[in-house]
Structures are given as structure tokens and as C-alpha cells.
């Protein structure tokens, strides 16, 4: 079935493909009546909306409580900016946030690049010697509980730290990159499996170099997968507590490890304030992203 789909697809831009089909063909409209939307699945929109409400209800609560004047994250005591002020004044929080963003950006970019290469190598091919091995190898970080990887890395890196004397951020960067790889790899692979080689073959027939083929044919088609993979990797890195806690050297707290340290004692709305700031940053980025795209098209 996929064969047929891909065959028909030759030469058309899959992006516009979706848009132009709105409403269906004349034949379908005749059979099913006017306004028949072939893309509709009953109840899907409702479920999607429930999903979004579910996703945002806790987050909104969190944002609201970040403006709580009281010391509690549970009891409302009036509006105030105090937690934003104290978060801003808290040097540890500030450093940890920047460190978290730096690590997540690095890990997301690097892991997405290597995962894309690996995905290209392991899909759309007949089985070759080692294919299963590579696949299992890449997905291995998924199979190991964080605490185990964490302990293993603690012992391994400690030996390197003692031997080389280098205790910088490098260990965290590479550890994060490694466990982000499968998260970047799987969406890209899923995307590639739906693409066949006919366009690339056509490009090659037109004497495009392999690089040009990749750059102008494969990558644009693959991009949503790359984007999904990169976003996943970023989020996963931003979330990691256990491995970071065990790998970090002195003065390398990330936001999650900093927060973990707070949990056993007391949770203040300062945490909510920091999270709200992160949300705000992401919303700003999304908006810019969105507006830039709109201008282009």
C-alpha cells in the first residue's frame, strides 16, 4: 500500500498535498454529500481538545501559584511578584537554569545530528550484517533505568576524572547526548520508514551528488521527523535528574538537581516562578518561530 502512495507522490510536495485535498474529490462528495471532510474522524477533535485541556490545567495552576504572596505552594495568599524577585536574586537558580539550557541545547543538536545519520543508515535497506545490532545498540539507553546508567557513569567518569584531572562540563554534555540519541532516533526512523527512495533515485539520475540529494531532497522531506526528534531530545535532557545528579562535579547543578535538593526540605513557589519563566521563554520562542514562518509564506 505504501508503494502506491509513494508512487503517486512523485513530484508533489507532501506539505501542500494535505492542504489541497480538503473536502475530497468530486466523486467522494457525490457519494457522501456536500461538506464531507475525508480527514475527519468522529470524536478525534474532542479527544484532542480534552488532551490539550489536560495538558494545560496543571500548568496553569502552576503559573497561578507562582504569583502567590504566601510561602506555600498550596494556600493562596494574594498576588505578588516576590517569588520572581527571589528567583532572580538567587544566583544558584540562575546559574543552574543557564547550565540546563546549555546542556539541553548541546545534547539536542548533537544527538539529533548523529541520530539522523544513524537513521539514514538503518532504514530503507534490506537487512545487512549488523543491522539488528546497530538498532539494539542505539536503543540501549532506553532499556536501562536511569539509576543504573547513573551509577555506571559515576564509576567510569570518576576514574577518568582522577586520571586526567579534567572535571569540566564535558562529562555532563556527553552523558546527556548519549541518552538523548534514542529519543531523537525513533521519530526520525519512523518518518524515514514512510519515505521511499524514488525521489532520491530520481535526483541521482539527474546527476545530483549524494550531498545535494540529501540537502535538497531527503532533508526537506525528513524535516518534521528531525524536528520532532530534536524537540524530544531537548525536553528529555532538560528533565534528567538521576544521571546528572551522579555525574555532576562541584558547582555543576542543573535546575532539576537543584530542585531535587529542595524537595526533601520544602517546596516554595520560587520553583513555580522558575518554571513559569521557562514557559514564557518557550512561548516567546514559539511565537518568533511562528511569525518568521508566516512572513516567509
Amino acid at each position, binding site marked *: 500500500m505504501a508503494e502506491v502512495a509513494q508512487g503517486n507522490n512523485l513530484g508533489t510536495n507532501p506539505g501542500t498535498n494535505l492542504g489541497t485535498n480538503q473536502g475530497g474529490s468530486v466523486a467522494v462528495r457525490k457519494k457522501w454529500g456536500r461538506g464531507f471532510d*475525508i480527514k475527519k474522524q*468522529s470524536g478525534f477533535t474532542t*479527544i484532542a481538545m480534552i488532551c490539550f485541556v489536560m495538558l494545560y490545567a496543571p500548568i496553569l495552576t502552576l503559573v497561578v501559584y507562582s504569583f502567590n504572596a504566601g510561602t506555600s505552594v498550596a494556600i493562596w495568599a494574594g498576588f505578588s511578584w516576590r517569588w520572581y524577585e527571589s528567583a532572580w536574586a538567587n544566583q544558584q537558580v540562575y546559574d543552574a537554569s543557564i547550565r540546563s539550557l546549555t546542556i539541553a541545547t548541546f545534547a539536542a543538536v548533537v544527538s539529533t545530528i548523529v541520530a539522523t545519520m544513524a537513521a539514514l543508515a538503518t532504514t530503507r535497506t534490506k537487512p545487512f550484517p549488523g543491522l539488528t545490532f546497530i538498532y539494539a545498540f542505539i536503543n540501549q539507553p532506553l532499556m536501562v533505568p536511569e539509576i543504573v546508567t547513573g551509577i555506571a557513569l559515576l564509576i567510569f567518569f570518576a576514574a577518568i576524572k582522577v586520571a586526567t584531572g579534567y572535571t569540566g562540563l564535558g562529562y555532563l554534555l556527553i552523558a546527556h547526548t548519549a541518552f538523548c540519541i534514542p529519543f531523537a532516533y525513533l521519530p526520525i526512523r519512523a518518518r524515514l520508514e514512510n519515505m521511499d527512495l524514488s525521489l532520491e533515485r530520481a535526483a541521482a539520475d539527474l546527476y545530483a551528488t549524494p550531498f545535494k540529494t540529501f540537502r535538497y531532497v531527503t532533508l526537506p522531506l525528513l524535516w518534521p521527523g528531525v524536528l520532532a526528534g530534536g524537540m524530544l531530545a531537548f525536553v528529555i535532557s*532538560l528533565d534528567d535528574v538521576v544521571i546528572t545528579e551522579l555525574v555532576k562535579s562541584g558547582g555543576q547543578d542543573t535546575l532539576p538537581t537543584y530542585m531535587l535538593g529542595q524537595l526533601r526540605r520544602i517546596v516554595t513557589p520560587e520553583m513555580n516562578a522558575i518554571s513559569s519563566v521557562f514557559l514564557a521563554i518557550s512561548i516567546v520562542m514559539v511565537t518568533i518561530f511562528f511569525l518568521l514562518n508566516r512572513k516567509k509564506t
Partner: protein
Amino acid sequence: MADGKSASNPAASAAAAVDRRDTRNRWLLSAPALIILLFAAIGPLIIVVVYSFLKKGDYGGVEWQFSGDGWYSVILQKDIFTDAVTVADAHVSILLRSVKLSFFTTILALLFGFPTAYFIATRNEKSRELWLFLITIPFWTNLLIRTFAVMEVIRNEGIVNSLLLGLGVIDAPLQIMFTDFAVMMGLLYVYLPLMVLPLYASMERIDFRLVEAGYDLYATRWRVLRHVIFPLVKPGVIAGSILVFIPSLGAYVTPRVLGGGRNLMLGNLIEMQFGQGRNWPLGAALSITLMAIVMIALLLYVRNASKTEARHG
């Protein structure tokens, strides 16, 4: 490949050479990922395997002395009071609970994630990106905080209970916190984008002319979904399920915070051995067991998937 028969046939041997070069190139292309993983994920795991066969240290850590105790106590336990050897029923029940909760979380994630991804994939090109980002925005907050946010919603005086009380649906707050259901909701909340993003990535490529053809043949919406759309996005479904199921299995923070830490999951049990329990060899052996289970499941999947791929040519 290069056996006597193909060597006697020049065309076949040329094809074999192409195959070999292709294989080499594919290995080279995978190499950077493999090297990073070897250095910072898999190599160090050899340490874990070695540790599982060592004697436990008195205060955590290990002593460099061979011992099968770690593996022995994965499945068997000596009753501390009667010395009778029985199946380690605590470990087994924790394992079963973890599998059960992760499985239902994955099903829930699919039930919610599939329509959501579909909804996003069928928007027009511009708003698609917006919806996609709307899914990920909540995940810019850290997992701990998100878990706490979920707690705010389901706790006795939280939004859900206040709403239901206000509407007169219930007269006393529902105890949602600290139940298996709370853990499942928490896991679902935390891992939902891991389901939606891969699903979206494969749905975005659906050629709706196939769907149209389905309707041309008088298929119902359900039959189109079941027989046209679902097969097309199967790789996404599988990728998403893996991404949700496996982290759920090893989840540590959510069962602790939302489940109230009373009924542990595998991740907590393993953490316990490396922490307060001070039995690193057992912790190592338990983790290898977990890995083995997941590995077998994955290999079965790969075998299945490569069969399908081969059909595509």
C-alpha cells in the same frame, strides 16, 4: 555472500561488492552515534554486569570478590526469620505491578495521543506547527515540577475534587492521590509527548488520496481508520509505544510522588538497592534483568519490522 557459486558469476560478485560497500557506508554513517553511546552509555554498563557478580560492600559499593548472591536474590529469597528459601515474592510483585502500570499507561497514551496527533496532522500547514508546539510547551517545565502540578490537580482539595464537589457530583473528595490510578495519570501526563511526536511525524506523511479511495469504495470512517490510516502510521505507533512503555517501566519520580511511595515500581526497587539497601550487586542484577526483558521485546519487534520493510523493497 562470496561463496563459490557467486564467484563464478561475475554479475553476482559485482553485486556482492556493491553490497559490501553499502554495508560499510551504513556502518560509517552510524559510527558517530555508536561511538558516543559506547563511551557514555554502553561501555560503562560493563561495569554494572561485572558488579552483579561481585560481593556487596559493607556500606554500599562492592568488594572485588566473586559472588553469585546478587543474581541468587533476584528470584529467590531466604526468609530472614526462618531461613526457608522461597521465590522472592516482593520482587516478582513489584515487577508485575511495573509491567501492568506501564502497559496501561501506554494504552492510555495511545488512546489520547493518536487522535491528538491526527488532529494536528490534519490542520493546515501553518497552524500545524503551532499545535505541535502547544503539545511540547508544557514539557519545558521540568518533570519534577510537572509531577507536582499534577498533584495540585488531583489532590483532595485540588481542581478536580473542588469541581466535582461544586457540581454536586460527589459529597466527599475522591481519594485519587496515592493510588495506582494517580501514578498512571502522572505517567500519562509526563510521557504523552513521547507518543504524540512520533505519531505526528508519521501521520504528517499520510497521502489522503488513499483515504479518499477508501471512501470511494464505501468504507465507513472506522474502516478507513482501521484499514487505511492505522497501517500507514504503524511505525509511529510502535516508536511512540516504545518511548512511553520503557521509561514508564523504570519510572522513579512519579510513583514516588503521586503513588505516595507506598507501592514501589521497578525503578524504585533498583534505586533502593543502590541507596538505603546498600546491595549494589543485587541492584545491578535487577537492572540487567529489566534490560533483558526489554531487549527481548525490542528484538522481536525489530524482526517483525524488518520483515515488513523487506516487503516494501
